[in-house]
């Protein structure tokens, strides 16, 4: 997919999504905004895990870094008398910088570590978020930081409600993040990431610096996670350690795996699922004739149970996730129509035969898919 097509696709998708907001009621628009915030993080995570093969359990901490960067900058600018769009943009840039720097540090550590070590380090980072928030004065402990309310800008006020405006902003930021990731994935850097993931030694022999590629992947992924944190802070007008727990980190991973590792479409499906499934389960348990105590108990835990089971079943049975299943179905249809033509093999880093089914890898893209 060339760059212009990616940009056009992103623009079209954004226009379509903004059109969709007119069909939704305010609460649905709020949910859409949250899903867009999660999408920033899941898209970054899917590129990190799927393309560069590094597992992060700490993306909630990176989102938190973005959220705090956004909130503190927004507060400082408000007291300096800056408002509106400049304040939003400056705060978002601060969020990107904060998450990017944290990601750079993690990436530098991660370039020397493999698999489980990196996962444990990032997990410990998330666990330490409340402790850091409590021990650094400016972060104000469990209470968190409140931000200035960003209302609908003047000319649009008569037209749309606050939630719809928030959804627009969230969708726009998510579109920027996902487009950036798509360009990285389809470009030279993406190719290098895949080369390093599949065989570090071979990649190094081909003139790629594996450590640099891994660090770059981590920074890119952190920046988008920081954008996600900024959007979440923008929508909820506050940031606190309670919002960025280990559970959120693990759920982001679930979303990415359920969608299919390495697939941006899958990341979007996963982000929507993260928002919709708890609501769906809540609706079902409310409708059942259960005592209120049981309902209360189920509300918090039943969605998690479903997510966990999905994760296990998918990793054990269908490692490609939802997007992988779609691709496989398409490929099956195509092979039935005509015998597979041997395409230019340069685009294949791994011959299909060496990737066993049941293995956790991005499905090899055949060049005919575009």
């Amino acid at each position, binding site marked *: 997919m060339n760059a212009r097509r990616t940009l056009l696709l992103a623009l079209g998708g954004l226009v379509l999504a903004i059109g969709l907001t007119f069909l939704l009621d305010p609460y649905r628009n709020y949910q859409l905004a949250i899903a867009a915030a999660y999408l920033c993080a899941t898209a970054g995570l899917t590129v990190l*895990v799927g393309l560069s*093969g590094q*597992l992060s*359990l700490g993306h909630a901490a990176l989102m938190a870094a973005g959220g705090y960067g956004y909130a503190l900058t927004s507060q400082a600018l408000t007291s300096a008398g800056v408002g509106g769009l400049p304040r939003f943009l400056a705060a978002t840039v601060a969020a990107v910088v904060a998450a990017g720097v944290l990601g750079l540090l993690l990436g530098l*550590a991660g370039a*020397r*570590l*493999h*698999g*489980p*070590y990196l*996962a*444990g*380090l990032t*997990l*410990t*980072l998330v*666990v*330490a978020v*409340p*402790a*850091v928030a*409590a*021990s650094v004065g400016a972060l104000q402990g469990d209470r968190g930081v409140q931000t200035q309310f960003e209302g609908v800008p003047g000319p649009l006020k008569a037209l749309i409600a606050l939630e719809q405006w928030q959804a627009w902003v969230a969708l726009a930021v998510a579109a920027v993040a996902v487009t950036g990731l798509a360009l990285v994935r389809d470009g030279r850097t993406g190719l290098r990431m895949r080369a390093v993931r599949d065989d*570090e*030694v071979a990649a*190094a022999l081909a003139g790629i610096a594996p450590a640099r590629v891994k660090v770059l992947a981590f920074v890119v992924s952190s920046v988008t996670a920081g954008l996600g944190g900024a959007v979440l802070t923008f929508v909820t007008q506050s940031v606190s350690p309670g919002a960025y727990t*280990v559970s959120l980190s*693990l759920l982001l*991973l*679930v979303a990415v*795996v359920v969608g299919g590792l390495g697939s941006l479409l899958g990341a979007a499906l996963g982000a929507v699922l993260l928002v919709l499934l708890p609501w769906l389960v809540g609706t079902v348990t409310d409708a059942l004739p259960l005592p209120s105590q049981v309902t209360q*108990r*189920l509300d*918090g*835990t*039943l969605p*998690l*149970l479903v*997510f*966990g*089971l*999905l*994760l*296990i079943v998918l*990793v*054990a*049975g269908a*490692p490609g996730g939802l997007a992988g299943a779609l691709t496989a179905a398409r490929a099956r249809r195509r092979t039935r129509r005509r015998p597979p033509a041997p395409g230019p093999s340069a685009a294949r880093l791994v011959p299909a035969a060496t990737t*066993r089914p*049941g*293995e*956790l*890898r991005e499905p090899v893209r055949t060049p005919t898919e575009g």
Partner: protein
Amino acid sequence: MDRLVFLLGTGLARGTLFALFALALVLIWRATRIVNFAAGAMAIVGVYVGVAVTGLTGSYWWGLVATVLAGGLVGLVVERGVLRFASPRSPLSGVILAIGLVIVLQSLLGIAFGQQHEPVPAPFSDRPLRVGGVPLLSPYDVFVVVVALGLMAVLRLLFVRTTLGLQLRAAAFAPEVARLLGVRVARMRTVGWVLAAAAASLAAMLAVPKELGLNPHAADMLFVYAFTVAVVGGLDSPGGALLAGLTVGVVMSLVTGYLGATLAPVAVLALLVVVLLVRPSGLFAQAEARRA
């Protein structure tokens, strides 16, 4: 001075627990090359069973036995039922399966028992004994140290002196050769998981009375500490786990005592970062051959 001695004493007592839990991670890593991220959630299942048995029989000891048995059973079910599907060629799939297991086990426990902290009383006094006028260890701490060190000694005997231990080591280090020589490698893996899960459950059961109380997340911090210990000691080295466990226990105790409990996770993070940057495969692991 009194305070320092007391903190050192409690630190060593906590450290043996960290070491025991870390040993469970090391056992599974050696047998299957998987870091068991579900160890905390699995151990807490055993603790719930143990506490229930104690409640039914009125005896702490039956509860302790039940914890170990239930923990081992959970290990068996998890290895045969879930982790068997981990792809041996991708280190990520084992971690992700374990994460799924954490989510499933904790939400099941949450549905069954709720999220509130159930206080679990210690079977012995928690008040520190004075040795020469200085408060040192409580009787419960002594009990914890004796049980944890005892179990580690038994495990060492099992691995070094028995045929089963020899088979376990052979299956872990050279699975193909071991299989050719008649070792049932798959069964040895299962045995390793059962032993590890039972040890982790026991460690969690001993740790719970010293924490806030029993809830589905009660072993999360224990797991994070134990992971740090296992990494500091080298995931391949049981002896390293013991030494690193005592070290981390003392460091945590000093940080908590002098700087405040909220800083303990930050201290763990700092320790982990430093060790991973200086010696990525742990302080006590054998050097790995250069690969590129």
